[in-house]
Structures are given as C-alpha cells and as structure tokens.
C-alpha cells in the first residue's frame, strides 16, 4: 500500500514534468504571438509578454490579412474533412468485411493493410508525387484519395480490432430481423462502432490537418496552399522571417484541432456494447 503510493507520487511528478515540457513550446508560441516583432530575437524569444514588448493582437491581424490565409484555411478544411470522412466510411466497411468474411483473400488483405502502416512515407514520396500528377490527384479535392491510402492502414487495423469484439449474434439477429448486409452495417454495426469512429477520426484529423510534406509534394503550391504550407510563406526574401504573424498563425491553426479533440473525447466511452449480450 505504502509502496504503491510512493510509486504513484513518483509517476505523477514525472508526468507533470513531462507534460510541462510539452506545453512549454506552445506557451512560448502564444507569448511570442502577442509580442512586438522586434522583441522576438534570439536572446529575447523566451521573455514573457510585458508592457515593454506587448503588441496586442497586431500580429493576429497581420496574419489574417496575409494574402491567401482564408483560402489556405478553406483548403485545409476541405482536405481534412473529406479525407477523414472517406477514411472513416471506407475503412470501417472494409474492416467489417475483412473480419466477417475471413477468407484467405481477406486475411491477406488485412496483413497488407497492417504492413502499409510500417512503410515510411519518405520511401515512396517521389514516385507518389509522379503518380499523383499523372492521375490528376494533385488538387485539394482529389488529394483525399491519397490520404485514404495512407490512412487506411491504421484505420483498418483499429476498426478490425473493434469489429472482432462485436458479438456475431447481434448481426445474425439483424439478418433474421430482415436486414441486408448494407442495412446491418448502417443500422447495427456502425452505431456500435461509434467510439472507434471517434478515436480514428481524432487521429486522422490531427494527422491530415497538420500534414506538411504530402500536400507540399503533391499539390501545385503556386495555386493551392494549405495552412502548414502557408506558414512557410511567412519567410520573406533575404532570410527575413515575419516571426510575430507566424506565431499568431500557428496559434490560430492549433485552435480547431484542440476544439475537435475536446468535443470528441467526451464521446469516447468504453462499454457501449455492454448490455447487448451477456457479460
């Protein structure tokens, strides 16, 4: 008992320090986004906001008025929403099929999906950007198919893990009640999988929203900029960087993802299936 308490204390202290270390950079970005640009230098970057260097919301105004901010935000939003929606719908159906049919082909397909998780993006990025160009996938509306491919590994893996825990009898009951497979999926399986949808949704949203390399390589960056690409454009010529507006921009793009996380995490509840069958 005593020993357990000590361990708990040590762990609490350790994780507190760790989380502070993670929060600190974000806190500094917030501080710097409120500072006057001349006070963001190598020596002054870590100072807190005070009367001597406060710039109010000037950096935010400047970031918002930056050319292309609104369109970049819109492109990021479109890409994220369509990609995540596509990943959720296609991968959950695929995982359900793979688990329930369980033929040799399905098993092979499943291992292929899992294998795709361990292939690093850097290994195939150049061939991919060529393929994307030749297939016309280099627009913000088509890039979601590339995201579907990259996101499928993790999503199918997570969905398949969950589908295995759904008792088969529930689906058999639906069959007897008169559902065809599509109805069984949408009326019975999908509602049961809600917690997994949310977990996968959060992970994929964070990844797609923050992704820099894929859109940078695939999209025609003169026409389409996403938020992470736009942030690069705060670097002017001759090595000049508009640090204040850049920090403000970073703060603004963090907000949606934090909101998504906070809203969704309430719904991640375990034991949604409890009560369906004995146990």
């Amino acid at each position, binding site marked *: 008992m005593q020993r357990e308490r000590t361990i708990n204390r040590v762990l609490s202290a350790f994780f507190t320090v760790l989380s502070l270390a993670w929060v600190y950079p974000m806190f500094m970005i917030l501080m710097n986004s409120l500072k006057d640009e001349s006070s963001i230098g190598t020596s002054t970057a870590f100072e807190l906001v005070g009367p001597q260097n406060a710039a109010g919301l000037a950096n935010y105004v400047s970031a918002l008025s930056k050319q292309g901010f609104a369109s970049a935000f819109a492109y990021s939003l479109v890409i994220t929403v369509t990609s995540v929606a596509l990943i959720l719908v296609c991968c959950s159906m695929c995982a359900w099929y793979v688990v329930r049919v369980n033929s040799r082909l399905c098993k092979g397909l499943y291992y292929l999906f899992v294998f795709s998780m361990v292939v690093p993006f850097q290994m195939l990025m150049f061939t991919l950007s060529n393929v994307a160009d030749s297939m016309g996938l280099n627009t913000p509306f088509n890039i979601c198919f590339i995201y579907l491919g990259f996101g499928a590994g993790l999503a199918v893996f997570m969905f398949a893990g969950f589908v295995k825990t759904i008792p088969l*009898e*529930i689906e*058999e*009951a639906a*069959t007897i*009640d008169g559902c065809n497979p599509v109805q069984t999926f949408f009326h019975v399986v999908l509602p*049961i999988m809600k917690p997994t949808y949310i977990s996968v949704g959060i992970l994929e949203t964070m990844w797609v929203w923050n992704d820099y390399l894929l859109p940078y390589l695939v999209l025609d960056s003169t026409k389409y900029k996403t938020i992470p690409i736009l942030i690069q454009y705060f670097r002017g010529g001759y090595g000049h960087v508009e640090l204040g507006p850049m920090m403000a921009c970073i703060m603004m793009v963090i907000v949606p993802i934090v909101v998504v996380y906070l809203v969704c995490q309430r719904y991640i509840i375990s034991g949604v299936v409890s009560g369906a*069958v004995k146990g």
Partner: protein
Amino acid sequence: MAQIVLKNIKKVYPNERGRRGLFGRRREEERKSNLEVTSEGVVAVQDFDLTVGDGEFVVLVGPSGCGKSTTLRMIAGLEDISSGDLLIDGRRVNDVAPKDRDIAMVFQSYALYPNMTVYENMAFTLKLKKVDPAEIDRKVRDAAETLGITPYLDRKPKALSGGQRQRVAIGRAIVRDPKVFLMDEPLSNLDAKLRNQMRAELIKLRHKVSGTFIYVTHDQTEAMTLGDRIVIMKDGYVQQIGTPQEVFNHPANLFVAGFIGMPQMNFFDAHLVHVGNEYHLETSDHDIALAPQTCNRLSESWVDGTSKVVAGVRPEQISLAREDDPDAISGTVEVSELMGSTVHVHVTVEGSELVLVIPTVDFEREGGSFADGERISFKFDQNAIHLFDKESGKNLVRS
C-alpha cells in the same frame, strides 16, 4: 403456425485438412469432437429426419457439439444445408434468405442492439418491413404487456437485468408474429432461480402466442418440461425422437437412458441367461429374474448368443429393503447427499456405484442415517429394469 419438415438433413463443414493457417496452425475443430470426418469434411449433422407439426413445441437436446444448434441455425438460414430438404409449410426453403422464411430467433446471448432502446429493439424488424407506425406501436406495446416489460420500453439494454433482457429478446421475436420461433438456449445465461421462473413463463407464453417452436437446450429439465416432443442428439446423429414420457420410460439406447433423468440411470454389466421360458440377469453375486412382460419381449426380439448386456435402473425406482427380504441387494454407502425432499445415496455394489434416491420421509421413517461405510439393503421392481445391448447400446426390450 407452420409445419416444418426436415428431410435427411446433413451439414458438412468443408475439410480443412492440409489447409494451414498463416503460421502453419491446424484448425482445432477436427480434433476436438467425436464428429465424423469424411472426405468431404467434418460432418456436424447427418440423417436428420423430423416433421414438426403445426403449433408443436419440439426441443432439441444433447451435449455440446452434438449438432443441435447447427440444426437450428440451418432452419434459421444462418448456416447452409449441405444436403437434404427443409420445408416450411410445404415450401422448400433451403435457399431462401432468413428474412423471407418467416421465422424469429432468440439467442442465448440475447443479441439485443445496444444502441437502441427496448422499444426500438422490438420495433426494428417491423420498421424494416415498413409497417404502419401506429401498427408497430400497438404490436410493441402488446408484446411488452404480455412479457411485463412495459416500464422499461425507454431503456437501453445495458440498463436491464439478464432476465429483462431475455424478455426483450423474446418480445422482439413475438412482435413479428412469425410462423416459427427458434430458440437457441435462451435460458442458459440466467441464474438457476431466474431460469426456473422464465421456464414457467415460456410455458405460459406458448399458450398465448400461436406458433411452432423449436427450442435448443443442453438442459434436460427444460427439454422435459417444455417440449411436446424431444429430439435427443449425439455426435451429429438423432438418437431418439419422442414425447418426454417416452424418452424417459423407454429410452432407445444407453446414451438416451444416461442423458435423460437426474440423477442419471444406474448401469451395471450383467449376463442375460435364458432358462426355460424365463430370462435371468446374472451378475457375480446376484441372480435377478426378469418380469414376464420383459421376457415376452425378449423372446420376440432377442437373439441368443449375445449374452453380455448392460442393465439400467432409475435411481427413483430403487427403494430401501429389509435385510431378510429375499430380493434385497446390499451395498456400502459411499456418500449421501441431502437434497431437501430426497436423499441421494451413493452405494457400491460389487465394485460398481449405484445411486439411490430415497424420499426424506421414508428415510426418517426408517429412523436411520446413512453414514459413510454403512451397509444398507435395497431392492427394485423387476419392471424397472432396462436392458441394453453391451455392444450396440440398443434397448433390447423397447416396444
């Protein structure tokens, strides 16, 4: 209501021999059970012939792995039928989808939809059939009333107890007003007390709801109390089909005799000897003359030569006797278990163990107690003896 005919139904799971999983693991199923393995595969059910009459309640019973659930799932359409014909009201339904067979099924694990309320669970099938909402409401409320679950209509399944959930599952079946109710061990997940209560309610329900019932259980008490007829299965084969009375009083073979009855029938090896017009059972220490009726049947059916038999006597048909009674057999008490109204006494006689069920009143009247190691005398009626062929296990005197 409907008549169901199963003609020579067979179920074979295709052979997995030689097919190995990714890591060279063999499928487990083949080794686990006593099911027959042919070149086609593992035979789960074979030679299944049964006609279930309109409105009849038939119980399939047997130990696990005997093929009873497989048979039920074939009737439901959840498993393909390998060969044979399944007819519901004269229509061959082998290849008809489950939803078009006009059946309802209750599962052992309830299988309620966790995301829907009780009301929605029950209304779901009717909604899919696009029944008028007012009609759905009436049917659901009627069924809920019958089953006493009206107060829980707005709850989700997780907020219900096991018994209530099973009622909802039954409710889901009865709102459809199906021709056939299929029940796959619906009471197995309930605790003993609730099971008894639900069993009684099922009997009542059966009179309220018109429909043909096929019920699967491994519990012989349920089979005996619920069924109009019982189908006893083992290793994929039907062992006997008959009314509860028939299978209890005239078991077709050793397996049925041992399976039906609690505690199970006592068996002992003996030699059957033909002396004049009489038949005797001989064991190493005893010589038991058989009843004239039994002798008559034996003279018709029994072929001399196979004298090795297994004799069976139900524990309830053995009573205590005085030591000086000429028919008395004596044995040593191993254990006695007081069950309340009866005492189960385990006795060893000539190396084999017998169980006697003695009503507590008799036991008190005798004024004795059954101490371990005590010698007691008992006897049984000649008519109580069942005779089975030692080799084939078949009942030798079954009419």
